């Protein structure tokens, strides 16, 4: 139950940037509270909006020092994620910056 933190780090991605969500499974290695759904890991999307910076929930949930991380609203096309749905349908998901990389990388 925390609000956006002041003195937020500069966002790495601007609205309109194409990104890819890291295809990572850190929960297999350490105790961590992850807010990145499995179904979107490894998928490409478009940054819609910068939502501010929030304490990193992955550390906060275990009472470890939680660095502020920039949170984005990212838009994905629905059909390639689930192989269902209609063309034009989309998914809008809040994702933290350390889960995102430029699409071409």
């Amino acid at each position, binding site marked *: 139950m925390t609000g956006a933190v002041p003195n937020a780090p500069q966002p790495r991605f601007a609205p309109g940037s194409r990104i890819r969500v890291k295809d990572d499974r850190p929960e297999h290695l350490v105790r961590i509270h992850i807010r990145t*759904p499995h*179904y979107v890991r490894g998928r490409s999307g478009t940054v819609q909006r910068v939502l501010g910076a929030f304490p990193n929930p992955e550390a906060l949930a275990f009472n470890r020092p939680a660095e502020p991380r920039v949170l984005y609203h990212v838009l994905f096309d629905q059909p390639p994620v689930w192989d269902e*749905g209609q063309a034009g*349908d989309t998914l*809008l*998901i*809040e994702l*933290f910056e350390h889960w995102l990389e430029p699409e071409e990388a």
Partner: protein
Amino acid sequence: MSTPYKAPSAENIALLEKLVAALKRRGIVTEEEIARRRETAERASPETGARMVARAWTDPAFRELLLRDGTAAAESFGVSMKGNPPLGVLEDTAEVHHLVVCTLCSCYPRAVIGYPPHWYKSAAYRARAVREPRAVLAEWGTVLPAGVQVRVVDSTADYRWMVLPLRPEGTEGWSEERLASLVTRDHLVGVALPGATAGAAAAA
């Protein structure tokens, strides 16, 4: 699609009482704070969200504020947002309809809609809304006009999301109060559309 409600066990209640007693002993919470929090939680209801929607339909400046800073818009309705996550509001258009789900847990804009219904927290809704939103909408009796795209909003992190639905046709000249009476919790989550599916919210 709802999950039957299970009352907390005696062990769970005893555990909660011990936890609260320990927090009070250490000065982390007081009885007054708990009472105040409980009062706020019980006062929260979808009527607040409905009034905000009706205001946005009739007042362009408020609509602009609601979409830019939902938290400030809620506070202007007397909702105390201190200690609450920021509120984000997503506007339906003639091209896009929003449906809110929290696949990871049950994030919900409680400050302006109150407690989530049991179906919102059910594994079935959480799994299906994101995967086959059109089938879920159809089961609610919600018919989207042809060509409208579905945008599923997975509430995964620090915001809480509410939908600003389209104002129904045939409501020209209505007062804000009368407009607010059209809007229910289901419209604010996006499983139904105001004015379009009267009496279809049987799954609640």
